[in-house]
């Protein structure tokens, strides 16, 4: 089971790094395990595109986000990737 898991993960890692194309637009996301719900990203977003989800973590609404990167500079946890 462990060996299968390691091989599967290795495949996923290599696949996502080398077999995928890079899109023209950037997409930013929040690492929920690192987010401390401080709300700094919400207050600086010029498109009002970030809000708390059910777990109280910040989530970027991709339908409004323009990938300006202001939230990256504001996040004290480095949770936006």
């Amino acid at each position: 089971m462990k060996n299968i898991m390691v091989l599967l993960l290795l495949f996923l890692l290599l696949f996502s790094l080398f077999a995928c194309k890079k899109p023209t637009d950037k997409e930013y996301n929040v690492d929920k395990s690192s987010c401390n719900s401080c709300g700094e990203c919400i207050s600086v977003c010029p498109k009002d595109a970030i809000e708390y989800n059910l777990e109280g973590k910040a989530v970027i609404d991709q339908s409004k986000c323009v990938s300006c990167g202001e939230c990256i500079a504001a996040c004290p946890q480095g949770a936006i990737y």
Partner: protein
Amino acid sequence: MKKLIIISLFIFSSLCLNAYYWNQTRISFYKSHDTEVYGGENNFMSELIIDKLNFRFQMNSLVSEEGFDDPNSYVTNEIRSLSTYQLAENSKFILGYNLDYYDYDKTQSSFIYDWINQPVQPLVKNYLYLISKNEWDNFTLLAGLRGRATGIDYKFDISDAINTAQAEHYDEFYKDLALAYKLTNNVAIYATFENKTFYSSNADFNDPGRDYDYTHYGGGVNFTSKNFLGGKFSEDFQYLRKDSKQYADYQRHNFINKLRYNYIMTPALSSFVSYISKFSYDDKEKEFYRLANMVRVQARYNLLNYNYQAFLIAGTSLSLENLNRIYFAYVNYPINKSFAISLEDRYSHNVYNTIIASLDYRLNSNFMFYIENSNSQSFSNINIYDFKNTLTIGTRMLFR
């Protein structure tokens, strides 16, 4: 005056109940190449625990001199309240309400951009949410309703020039559902559903080009092991289908892979590495796309054998796809039973460097006083300021 009365009432109730109380005041100095601006902030938080009910109330007031044409100049009042009621051991309800009120008369500098990139002054934001979490046997069900209403006004009267009508408010209504089933002690499967309905008070803004409705649904599998190659391991793989008129074709079929590995090297040294990768499939072009990914490596070292409050945390967070690199280090060290110092440095390559130093004074187990200074240097034009210094004075109190 109203704020003082509300805070006094909470402190008074804190004295009678099981409660936690925190207050801090911040003075900030911002500097850009041609502007120097002062700002202030006060944060108050009180948490009351009454039997099965947990109530949290938070009030933030933020003031800044006008100087930057960005959200760094503002007069904002924020009220947050969160109530959690434990109905039974495996069932709870959460009711939350956030209110952000922007003092429009005092400054017009805090704005967002609307659908056609006109600068908009948010007047008030209301965010209400109701969540129910239930667990039985191997099932966990999370259901939620969230509503957000934002009142807006236009900062510049551009509408005459481009001859378009203006919206007065826009509202978003979210419906969430998540169901998880534990197959074994190590493996769980889950399904999620989220829908957002967007509504603007101006009918012109509800046309398909400005339709911000979306529906996300999908499922995933989660694996955890407490003894995997000598450490604790968790892996989560999820497929998420995203439908919205605002999404490009390559954003519709998403695959999210998250793994985390914790390893205790010695009793004093522990570490973890986590990796998140998000890629998608465009079914029209038959191509896979790399959307975003991040590697985070972090280690913690206990500086004293007999006191776990003396520690050093250091690590890095690398976002390979979006070329973002952050390095951080944090030291906390108790000098004696009353005083503790901490020092933190966060460096984001080509974006900012922030150094935070603080001194804590603990009078007893129920009362703490702290003073903190944060100094941030910006290297990019993302931040409106080149330099920002913030001095914070705060207290924490616990009543039992």
